[in-house]
């Protein structure tokens, strides 16, 4: 697992009401820190209101840890060139995320590349 330097994003309150970005608030994710998790896809859930990538990665002690990576809804994924077949169990991936604020292994997906560093998702 590789952890990249933190982003220095200015924290600005952009909405007066609950800042529902997708169907829930994004406050559950630490949007000032970006990190990349490298591992093996256990499952790709093409589901609504969010798709999820379940990725198994080694922690610092070499122990397997399963990460839950949240994505947008299938219609938006489709529009961005993703398909249910874009990821298969056993695929090696690097998933860049904003991690969960509570420290649990999970986050919201910013980008995904394969073992060769190629961006996943059909080029539109």
């Amino acid at each position, binding site marked *: 697992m590789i952890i990249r330097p933190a982003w220095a*994003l*200015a*924290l*600005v*309150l*952009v*909405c*007066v*009401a*609950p*800042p*529902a*970005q*997708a*169907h*829930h*608030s*994004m*406050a*559950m994710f630490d949007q000032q820190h970006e990190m990349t998790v490298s591992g093996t896809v256990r*499952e790709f*859930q093409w*589901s*609504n*209101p*969010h798709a*999820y990538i*379940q990725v198994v990665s080694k922690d610092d002690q070499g122990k397997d840890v399963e990460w*839950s990576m*949240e*994505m*947008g*809804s*299938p*219609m*938006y*994924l*489709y*529009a*961005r*060139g*993703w398909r249910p077949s874009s990821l298969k169990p056993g695929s090696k991936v690097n998933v860049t*995320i*904003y991690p*969960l*604020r*509570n420290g*649990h292994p*999970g986050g*919201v*997906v*910013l*980008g*995904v590349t394969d073992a060769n560093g190629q961006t996943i*998702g059909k080029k*539109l």
Partner: protein
Amino acid sequence: MRLAIAALALAAGACPVLAQDTQSETRTEKFAELPYWPGYWVSEYQAGTTIGGIAPSILEARENGTPLTNFMSLNGGQAPWNEEGRRRVAKVREIAKGRKAAGWGFPMMMNAATPLQFLITPEEVLIVNSYNEVRHVYTDGRPMPDMVDLWPTVTGTSIGHWEGDTLVIETVMVKTPSDYFHGAPPLSEDAHYVERIHLDGDRLVSDVTIDDPTTLSETWHTTVSWIRDEGFDRMVQIDWDNDRTGYDGDFNTIEPPDEGK
């Protein structure tokens, strides 16, 4: 005499056909006069939403340090709530932690991270999103049904009419929106919604006014706009089958996968 009878018989037989043709031509003419808004429309502030469900407009506002006041404006962040409205807003926030949802419902479906399709016919306008949510807006001149024939529903009951190229929609009997979706405004079931939707260049713009003496101190005015985002080439209906939003006591979180799915 025989000739006259034959002519009458022929005319009598032809009349239904003629009437049908005339009706068909009239409908075709009416259709041709109506606006045509093809394509898949997404809220302007949601355009370009990433694979993680993050709208670029949010990131830009953060980076520039500028407020983004019209993002999902129908959620009521700028609404003129009265005391009861503020009480309801506070209550919705209090119970929002980890709350799951079944869809957007009205009015949030007009402002949500989902494409919309506007199907315009002389008799009704269908507004459809990709989550099995459909609004039937009858434009055939019928009045709003009697109150005794109505009951609160997630999308309410709508009638509409055209003022030039502007579609005017009146909607009543919407279930309290925040009961269905936690990011929606806690308006009462007595709320009266009016939308005026028109094409402005490549944008669709809706001027919205909402009256609800139960929760609002005055008429709430807001605007929603849509553009055609890239990548959508058909509407796919998807149910909300896997909401893994949870709450750990301090923060919202992602629940473990349901192995049964």
